[in-house]
């Protein structure tokens, strides 16, 4: 019996430890914890969102909504699931440099934002939506594309 602490397991443990250590350090260095907060400045940690952030600072929504209000769904689990999903793909795209310029919102995230518009402005939306319940037929941001931030 070599036990589960055999030479092979030690190598794996070391490798995993290195990965964890480097990963942990990267997390701290990149201010990873800030992404768990509601603070909009966390979204400009990585420079790519600078234009959007600057636009938001000058926008009508600055006083009433932060990034998370429009870009994450309500509820603890959906909210952090969205953060995790976007966090992973943003890190991947921005590290490899493979992304479209100017950056574009994807379909899932657009849905999140659309729901946020409709939630806060429910009274107005109910009065004007010709097809309630059918999403995509009429999108708020198709016309109001600069209320949160330009571009």
């Amino acid at each position: 019996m070599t036990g589960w602490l055999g030479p092979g397991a030690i190598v794996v443990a070391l490798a995993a430890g290195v990965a964890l250590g480097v990963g942990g350090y990267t997390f701290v260095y990149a201010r990873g914890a800030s992404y768990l907060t509601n603070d909009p400045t966390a979204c400009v940690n990585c420079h790519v969102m600078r234009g959007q952030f600057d636009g938001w600072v000058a926008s009508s929504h600055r006083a009433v909504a932060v990034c998370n209000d429009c870009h994450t769904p309500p509820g603890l689990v959906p909210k952090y699931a969205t953060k995790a999903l976007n966090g992973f793909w943003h890190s991947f795209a921005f590290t490899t440099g493979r992304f479209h310029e100017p950056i574009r919102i994807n379909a899932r995230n657009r849905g999140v934002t659309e729901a946020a518009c409709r939630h806060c402005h429910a009274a107005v939306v109910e009065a004007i939506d010709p097809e309630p319940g059918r999403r995509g037929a009429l999108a708020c941001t198709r016309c109001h594309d600069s209320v949160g931030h330009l571009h």
Partner: protein
Amino acid sequence: MALPPADPPRRGARLRFAGLLVLATLAAAGAVALLVNIMERKSEARHPFYRVVELDDRTEDPAVWGKNFPLQYDAYRRTVDQVRTRFGGSEALPRTPTEADPRSIVAQSRLDEDPRLRTMWAGYAFARDFREERGHAYMLEDQTYTERQIAARQPGTCLHCHASVYVPYMTQGGGDLIRGFEKMNQMPFAEARQLVEHPVACIDCHAPDTMQLRVTRPGFIEGIRALKAAQGVKDYDVNAMATRQEMRAYVCGQCHVEYYFEGTDKRLVYPWARGLRVDDILAYYDAAQFRDWVHAETGAPVLKAQHPEFEMWSQGIHGRSGVACADCHMPYRRVGALKVSDHHVRSPLLNVNAACQTCHNWPEDELRARVHTIQQRTYDLRNRAMDALVALIADLEAVQGAGRGDAALATARDFQRKAQFYLDFVEAENSMGFHAPQEAARILAESIDYTRQGQLALRELRTR
């Protein structure tokens, strides 16, 4: 008793071990890649540039500035590219160099593309040689070797916009920009040419200590002061009073404008004292009784419009919305953590993604189609206005041949002057109507109407 031999590790366990090892290794490598990338971005954001040379108000050579600002300088050098768009841009044509003109590549001749231009400009140097404009990199070379230099004696004034003249003006004026400007205006072109070395350079638009945009061209400093005075703003000092966003258009408006040479001093003047519209500018010229030349076929005292991009833009929706030249012709691009103005100044049609999509959330093809629709309509209207003008010139010539005196022809000649200036205002403007679509269409429609009135005046003469 000997220990029983250890069980040979099972195949599955070995595989699991290898798999875990590979996974852990990949995770570590991925984390390091991310870490290094974040470090690079952080350091780029901390140091947007490194000052490796000192720049002062006499540093003319853009290559020296380029040591501090390599990203901007690299892009700036790319204005050598010759690319066509549907209605503009230049094509590189081979040419056999001669002693008088050593260029081995030139742009296509606009006169050969549209021979009606020769009729419109008959008797003027532009009827001899007029090629499609190339990029900034060629401004000095192309002005030095154009055959217009042979057709007529050109003054040193031309260099105001065909070379980096800030340092030469300051040197010639003993530290006084305006005095240097006046001095070089009065020199023959060849003499003034010896004093300049570079096409437009960094120092023409940037202050060397702060990199802030600044206007260095006396023509614009005086022109915008006259325009603002007409609008009720006294003693306008562009470098002290313009906003940053205004400066992103004004630095281009230093040269991409309508102008004329005033008096025997050949002082460069932007005719804006009554406003920027074509009507205001023609009224200014009429009041000053200015003419660029006398038309060789009709004897009309006519005007040549010159690339009035700044004026046309000011009448369009982009200008009205505060979108500056640089927003579309030098859009921001991302280099690492940095946001850099693209100093490869060019047609937005060659860069729709960065130039248009930043504000207009439509596919590239759709945006391009919108621009082409505007340009095609303007082009069709321009062609009709051109046909009309050529017909008026032929009619005037015929009546003149019938022995009519100058006095009788004055009305028709004035209509030729008007029609021609309006048409040329759109023709010489480098956007084929895009900078202000409705304004361009209005100008062309009025040009056609002036031609019509000119022909009516001639009909009256014939029947009298």
